[in-house]
């Protein structure tokens, strides 16, 4: 193993090891100080940035397109094996760099922002676990390993949405987001199993698995489902404002920078597969375009800063999906890097910006004149009102999901419960109001 391979392993594993160590010492009864936690976070990500810089320098010096580390198989059963391959190529390196730099910055910002917060250690534990999951997903040499990182990102995202656990809305919204994540992840899981079934492998360190046109279309559509869920694309956009319940630094890193772009990364990774199917490419473009329009309209009707920013993110990710669907991979990657950086800054700046606005408004004795609201003036007045109502209810997407998916499922569950209790005394309230959490309780404008 040469030093660039060692460095790649270090970059990926370091946050995971820190998470494990901090979790174990907490379980043993020791709560590390804030200073210790922020220092160890700073050192870890500074070292990771340095290591990644060295990997880049090494690649530039040798002209090699990628660094890959093969650990053999995680487990093997006869012909089936789960390969453990880390890969840093031209696609994953920008994402790895973006992750270590932005997570390191968020770590430093949060040390002050969450000072004396009760969940300080919990936040940093989850931040390290999230960084590990993201780095694992972006450096995976196979879709199997990508699934592992992908799921870890999802779990940490949920636990950070429920960070303010004493309040009910964040907890219920976390559950709603979790349900959507899990539903969409079925696409990823089945897509990967389909790749194994048809191509005998899900590794991409030697190129994508070889599939026929129809198989590519099926796998592409399944992966699009997963990517759309993770990137909050239409029709799954309803979870994004609910996710704003978490602390601002986590909103910045998840929904401004890394998690929201994980879906785009997945599509970039399988772009040649998508390109071989007109249907899959067209659907990617359609989803992205719809989301971009939806995002910009709903964002304009949002009453709070974080939700506006979240929908602005959504608009850009929608455009990125369109770029991927068209096949502009390089532009999409540059778009992601630029967008993630700017949006993280905007999220982090949002609380103090609101404070500044209030000061300015106090100074001038009134409200500042609104900007950026000229586009809707192009529509007729009665349509403007209709569009406003539509945007205020976030495109009715949650209502549609509830009415067509959640409520029927809950009704079926209650029917099965009645069948279960035939012949015995029914315990009171055991299954009456359990569904509240699934269809959530977030109200437009209630978050911020």
């Amino acid at each position, binding site marked *: 193993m040469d030093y660039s391979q060692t460095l790649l392993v270090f970059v990926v594993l370091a946050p995971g090891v820190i998470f494990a160590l901090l979790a174990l010492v907490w*379980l043993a009864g020791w709560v590390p100080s804030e200073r210790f936690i922020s220092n160890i976070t700073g050192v870890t990500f500074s070292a990771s940035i340095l290591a990644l810089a060295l990997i880049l320098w090494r690649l530039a010096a040798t002209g090699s397109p990628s660094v890959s580390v093969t650990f053999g*198989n*995680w*487990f*093997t*059963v*006869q012909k*089936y094996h*789960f390969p453990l391959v880390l890969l840093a190529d031209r696609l994953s390196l920008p994402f790895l760099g973006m992750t270590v730099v932005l997570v390191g910055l968020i770590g430093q910002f949060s040390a002050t922002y969450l000072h004396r917060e009760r969940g300080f250690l919990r936040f940093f534990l989850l931040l390290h676990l999230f960084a590990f999951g993201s780095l694992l997903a972006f450096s995976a040499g196979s879709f*199997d390993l990508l*699934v*592992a*990182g992908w*799921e*870890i990102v999802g*779990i940490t995202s*949920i636990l950070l949405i*429920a960070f303010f*656990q*004493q*309040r*009910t809305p964040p*907890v*219920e919204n*976390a*559950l709603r987001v*979790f*349900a959507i994540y*899990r*539903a969409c*992840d*079925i696409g990823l*899981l*089945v897509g990967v*199993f*389909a790749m*194994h*079934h048809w191509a005998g492998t899900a590794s991409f360190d030697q190129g994508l698995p070889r599939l026929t046109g129809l198989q590519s279309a099926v796998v592409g559509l399944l992966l699009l489902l997963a990517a759309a869920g993770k990137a909050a694309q239409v029709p799954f956009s309803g979870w994004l404002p609910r996710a704003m319940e978490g602390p601002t630094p986590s909103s910045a890193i998840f929904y401004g920078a890394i998690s929201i772009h994980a879906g785009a990364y997945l599509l970039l990774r399988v772009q040649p597969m998508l390109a071989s199917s007109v249907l899959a490419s067209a659907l990617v473009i359609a989803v992205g375009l719809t989301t971009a329009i939806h995002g910009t309209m709903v964002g304009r009707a949002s009453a709070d800063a974080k939700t506006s920013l979240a929908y602005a993110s959504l608009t850009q990710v929608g455009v990125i999906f369109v770029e991927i669907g068209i096949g502009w991979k390089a532009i999409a990657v540059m778009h992601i890097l630029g967008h993630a950086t700017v949006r993280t800054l905007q999220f982090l700046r949002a609380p103090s910006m609101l404070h500044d606005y209030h000061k300015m408004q106090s100074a001038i004795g009134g409200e500042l004149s609104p900007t950026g609201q000229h586009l809707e003036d192009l529509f007729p007045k009665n349509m403007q009102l209709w569009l406003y109502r539509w945007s205020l209810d976030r495109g009715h997407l949650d209502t549609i999901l509830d009415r067509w998916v959640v409520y029927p*499922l*809950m009704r*079926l*569950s*209650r029917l*099965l*419960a009645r069948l*279960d209790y035939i*012949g*015995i*005394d029914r*315990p009171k*309230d*055991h*299954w*009456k*109001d*359990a*569904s509240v*959490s*699934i269809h959530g309780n977030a109200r437009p404008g209630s978050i911020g």
Partner: protein
Amino acid sequence: MRSQPWLFTALAIGVPWLAAILTAVARRRAREIGFTAALVAVAASALLLRATPPRESLGEALMVLFSCLTLGATLVLPRRDCNGSTIGGILFLLGSTLLAYSTNDLRVLLAAWVLSTVPFFVKQWFRARIWRPRLGLLLSSIALALAVGLIAAKGHNMSIGSLQGRSPGGMAVFGLLVLAVIFRKGILPAHAWVADAAEGGPAIPTALLLNGHFGAMLVARLIMPLFPYTARDLFPVLSDLALATALYVAIRALTENSPRRLLAFVALSQSASILAGLESRTAEGITGALVHWFVVSASTMGLFGILRLLEVRFGENLTASRHLGLAEHAPRLAVFFIVFGLALVGLPGTLSFCSQDLLIHGTLASHPQTGLLLPIATAMNAVSVFRLFARLFLGKRRTGFTVMADALPRERWILTAGILFVVLGGLFPNAIVTLRSAEAEAVEGAIDSPADRDPAPGYKSPAESWSKDEGLRDGPASHRGQQGPSAFDQGPHGDFER
């Protein structure tokens, strides 16, 4: 050396039974007696496992697993429940279960099967109004007793080893054994007793009863080796029923508010897929099923143990219909709960991620519907587990409690051991997977390679007996019995390949 396996088996089974009797005398020392007896069972089972070749070690591996679960139960059992009666019952259950895993005789298996249910009848563990668990256990015992009786009536040897591949008793015995599995495992439509037992029975002993997975054991050790041809033709029906159960109870759990019932539904849904994996006839599927068996057992025991600890601390009226905010009072129990819960539903980094990967991959080849529907059931189970976690541990703290009621050191260490098993097993799964893989090959071989065994005199394959005796089938199937088992494997286009 030859006598050592017998000695280890006798120790593993006899010591818990003797200790069960001893707890009736020394009631104040019940936990110490229970812990010591379970520890002896763990050591003896581990030595037995070590002395057994990997391909034949399924029973021994299960003995180690169940002994470890019981050892954990004796430690995690709250003081309120830790009386001579409960510990005695648990130890009796341990001895009976180990006897069932270790025996090679059908009569002994039947006896162990029945004995394992005795504490739940004798000690009145189930409340009087709950009758379905008793009925489920009773019907499963009757079905197995009839099957064993029919085999004996046909004059067969009662040794499992000598009956392999001979379809003793034909379709009637096969059907009775499948019925025994359905009732004992809680497969649709006999699923309701599992939730009733979890809710109305003592939490930890009931979790042990369910985690004996006698139904899956019967499939792996009896049905598939004894009825390879019938299993190949008809077992997919049971597999589909198991899949339907996994989906049914996963949907059912979505609106369940009783924490015990909800956990029982999730555990049942996750464990039902074990049958689908065992039936997949692929090494990956069977290995996945066996590994899944281990991880589901460990996670379920952990979850039920934590739930009981919460009930003892915060009252038995816990509900998932509102937020209780218990993480404020018991943060470590909250962490243990979410890790065990997510381990049960396939969180990456835990052993169940590997087992489900193998299971779904293995079943995708033989039954695409399983590969598609299991992820859906698992996704719904994950939502249910997270909902239960959120409702129990998150939200506004309960003002009635002002003290910290977190895990005691005794509970903390044993729960940490459970977490380490599922997490380290997930990070380094090869050791566990390789062992299960060897056992899986033996199970797979029992179905796919019956050619090297001599059929019993006068043996008729199920298809043959159907076609000749009952007129249900005819055609190429009738040739199988005449040509012997070697004619059964006709490659992918053979008459009996599905």
